[in-house]
Structures are given as structure tokens and as C-alpha cells.
């Protein structure tokens, strides 16, 4: 039974992983900027699916709420307001330096991930436990503890930064 559940999780994982990566490649490869923005949405949803597989359903929902619901729409808005959408991105001439920099960043991230001592609970998980994880509060309270108690200063600083960004944009568009 345990093997069966992990098999279906494996299948779901591969479906999500492949579609996420393919759409991420499509984001950079497509000429049509509007469509690549739409593929960016697919990537975001795939990442939300990954969070769900890791039973971080709160993070998955925040991912969809913020990235799909707000940021993707703003990106699309910006794309539509851009002239000559069909001609592709004007930044394509920076292809090689971008490739080098993102390759370095990727190598760094992989290095950090593989060298971190993750506190993973590697027990086999039965379907009953999975159902229980959906029903009961598991991760939510911990996130709240960390955000509002332990890292409250960083949380507030980020809020102030966002607020100043809002005020700055208002000042920019204000009638003179």
C-alpha cells in the first residue's frame, strides 16, 4: 500500500516537474512576449503544485494568490502596454552574459541545496497520514510563529519597503 501511494506521488511529481520545466523554457524561448508571460503563469502553478506535493498547502495557495493572481496579471499588463510586442524581447542581445550569470547562480543554488543538512522526515507516509495532513493544521501555525514572533523585524521592514514603493509610485504619477 505504501509503495502504491509513493508510486502515484512519483507520477504526479514527474508530470508537474516536466510541465514546469518545459513551460519555464518556453518563457525564454518564445518570440511572442504575451504567450511567454502566459507560460510563466504555468510555471508558477507548477511550483504551487510542488508545494502541494510537499504538503505545504499554505505556501501553494500564497503562490497562486500572489504570483498567478497579482504578479502575472501585472506582467501581462506591462506586456500589453509595451510597443511592438510581436518583435520579441529587446534584451535578447544580452543572451551570452545572461547565460553565464544564470549558470553561475544555478550552480551556486545547487551547491547550497546539496550541501545543506535538511531536516527531512524520511519515513514512509501512508495515505491516512496524508489525509490527516490535509485536514489538520500542520504548517500554518509554525509559519505564523516564525513570521509574527521570531522574524517580526524583517517582516515589518519588508512591509515598510512595500509601503514606500506604493508611496513612491503615487508620487511619480501625481499631477504636478
Amino acid at each position, binding site marked *: *500500500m505504501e509503495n*502504491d501511494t509513493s508510486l502515484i506521488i512519483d507520477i504526479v511529481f514527474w508530470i508537474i516537474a516536466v510541465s514546469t520545466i518545459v513551460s519555464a523554457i518556453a518563457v525564454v524561448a518564445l518570440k511572442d512576449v504575451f*504567450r511567454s508571460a*502566459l507560460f510563466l503563469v504555468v510555471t508558477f502553478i507548477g511550483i504551487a503544485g510542488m508545494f502541494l506535493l510537499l504538503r505545504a498547502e499554505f505556501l501553494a495557495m500564497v503562490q*497562486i494568490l500572489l504570483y498567478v*493572481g497579482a504578479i502575472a496579471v501585472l506582467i501581462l499588463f506591462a506586456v*500589453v502596454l509595451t510597443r511592438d510586442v510581436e518583435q520579441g524581447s529587446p534584451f535578447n542581445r544580452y543572451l551570452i552574459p545572461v547565460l553565464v550569470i544564470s549558470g553561475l547562480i544555478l550552480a551556486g543554488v545547487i551547491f547550497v541545496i546539496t550541501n545543506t543538512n535538511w531536516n527531512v522526515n524520511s519515513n514512509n507516509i501512508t495515505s491516512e497520514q496524508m489525509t490527516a495532513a490535509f*485536514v489538520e493544521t500542520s504548517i500554518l501555525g509554525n509559519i505564523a510563529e516564525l513570521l509574527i514572533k521570531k522574524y517580526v523585524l524583517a517582516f515589518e521592514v519588508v512591509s515598510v519597503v512595500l509601503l514606500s514603493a506604493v508611496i513612491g509610485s503615487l508620487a511619480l504619477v501625481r499631477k504636478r
Partner: protein
Amino acid sequence: MMEIEILRSGFDFLGIYGFFDGFMPDNLDWLVFLITSVILAMVIINALVISTALLTWFERRMLGRFQSRLGPNRWGPFGLLQPIADLVKLLTKEDTIPEGADKPVFTLAPIVFLVPALIVFAVIPLHGSSFLGRLNIGLIFVIAITSVNTLAIFMAGWSSLNKYAMFGAMRAVAMLVSYEIPMGISVVGVAIAAQTLGLSNVVLAQDIPFILVMPLGFLVFITAASAEMSRTPFDLIESDSELGAGYHTEYSGAKFALLQLTEFMAPVIVAALVTTLFLSGWRGYGPIPGPVWFIIKTFVVLFGFVWIRASWPRLRVDQIMSLAWKGLLPLSIVNLFVIAVEVFIFNPGEAGLSTRDLLIMTGINWSITIIALIVIFNVMGQSKLKRPEPVALPLANMYANTTVSKKATDLAEAD
């Protein structure tokens, strides 16, 4: 016996799961999950589509009543079969795609529009032990999934390659993104008072319906939600006197049917949400079972929506934006602040707020609501609205930035 148990439990995931798990071999666990999910999806989709079809009939009949006419009454008893006639008409029409449109996006948009609506309904608890209602992040789930429809409207408007569709989509994005904020904040008030994010637990926490405990939150939520589903006071997305039909100008046939279906589905879902969040869901009195109470309350909210649609004129673009940012946002923050302070003072702990606490909160919140509404009405009411400068000649606006306009104003000054 098993079947009766399942029928009684309605949308109970675990009930259906247990039924199949009973006779399936153990190593086919995944198949049981699959069958259960498919059955659940079938039930949810069919229930939603049928109730939406009934809503279109009800809405048209009621609008007819409000406007002193009959409404559809020819096909079937009281015109009840009218939705079927509409469906047949829409499906038999030619499905056209405009020349030069972005075809895949154009085809995908109605689907992206419909699917979130169906998913959201899955987590609404029709009764106590509904599995999907016990999802511990139900509130955030609802807010997150409904925010996807902005994307669908934008896709539809952009891919149509039509000016009016694009205008409708631009207005839609501006409006939906603005109204999501007060809606989210008013929902946070509910979550704080109920001490949970699960929709089932929200219902269980409502010893007094939250419409009485936090009337301000209710008002903000229902206003923002009717903007989110772009019904009449807020329907400038598809205001037919200005934009043709807004973002679905170019749609016809089955795709148009899907878009219309989703638009009429939105009131059903929002009414079910309002019932869950503010009207204490399936809880009721007497021998009437929970789901029936749920349906009665949803129906009352739906009637309210039809009533609003029949009696309110459409708002202008600038009025809509100022209502969201200057009216609803401060009101929702006042509501959140008051409730957070009250819950902090009562400090309910694990057990949740007692009925006595809720009664005290009701008293305080009603007085604060009345004061806040009076203040907001005085700050941004009709008498304080800045009217645009009067135009010299009726046609001067039409020729703005042209030489004709200059002449027109010159003429007016000469007079």
C-alpha cells in the same frame, strides 16, 4: 446501510472513500482515490451547472418582475426550460474565431475562466463533516483561486484582437485587482474572529452569525464580491452601451456559452461563500437538516443579488476606483482593526469565542459600523464628489485635442 451513510454525508470525501475502500483490494489504494475524486468532481460540476441554469431562469423572471414585465414564460412550466433552449441555441451557433486572433489563447480563455469557479465550490462545506470543507486553508484557497479569473478575462480580451474587448479587459484588471484587496481584508476579519482558516470551522465558530457580529465586514465583502463577479452596479467591464460586450465581444457559440455559464455561476458561488462566512452556513434551527438550511440561505443571498442588479445604475470608471480605494479599503481596515483588538482583549485561546463575547462584539461593532459609514459617506458622498469641469459645448468633448475643440471653446468664450 453503507449507501444510506454516504447519501447522508453528501459531499463527504472520506465517506465515499470508505465505501470503495471497503471492497477494493488493499493494493489498489490509488484507484480508490481516483474513483472517489471523479465521483466528487461529477457531483460538484453537475450541481453547480444545474443550479446556475436555474439561476439564469430565476434571475430573468425576477428582473422581469422588477421591471413590470413577464420575463421568459413560454418554454415549459413558468418558462423553467428556458435555460435548455438557451443552451441549444448557443451550442448550435457557428463558433467563429476572428481573423488574426491568438487562436490557442482565445480557445483557452473560457476554460481558464470556468475551472477556478468549479474548483472553489469544492471546498464549500454543505454540512458538518464535509471533507473538502475541512481543508485547513479553505479561506486562502478561495481567495487565491478566485483571483485567477482576472487572468482569464485578460487572456480573452487580448487574444480577441478587438479594441472593445481590450478596453473591457483593461477595465477588468484595474477593477478586479483593486477589489480583491478589501475583499481579502474583510475575510481576514472573519478568520480572526473564528480563529481558523478552514471553512467548516468558520461555520462552527458562528454561534451568532457573523453578519451580526461584523456588519462592516459583511458590507465590504458583499460590495467587493459583487464587483469581483462584475454584476450590474460594477459591470463596466462589459457595459454594453460603451464597449459592445467587453471582453467577450468576439466570442460566439460554445465558447460564449462557457463564458456566460461562468458569469452566472459566480453569484451562486459568492452566495454560497457569504452563507458560509457570514450567515453561519448549514447551522439552523428545528428539524430541517443542515444542507437545506444552506440552500435556503444561499437562495436568500441570491435574491439579494438580483435585487441589487435590478435597482442600481452602473457606476462610472472613476467612481468605481474611488469606491474601492477611498471607501472600501478604509472600511475594511477599520473592521479588521476593531475585530483584532476585540479578539486580543477577549483572548479566547483554543476554545474560540464564547457566545457572550460574540454578543459584546456585536454591540460594539454595530455602533462602530454606523459611525464609520456616516464618516465615509460624508467624506466621499455625492455632495463631496468633484464634478468634472463643465464642457463649453455638447460636442466639445468629442473633438478634444483637435482644432475643432479649440474653436468650440473659443466660441463659448466669445459668447
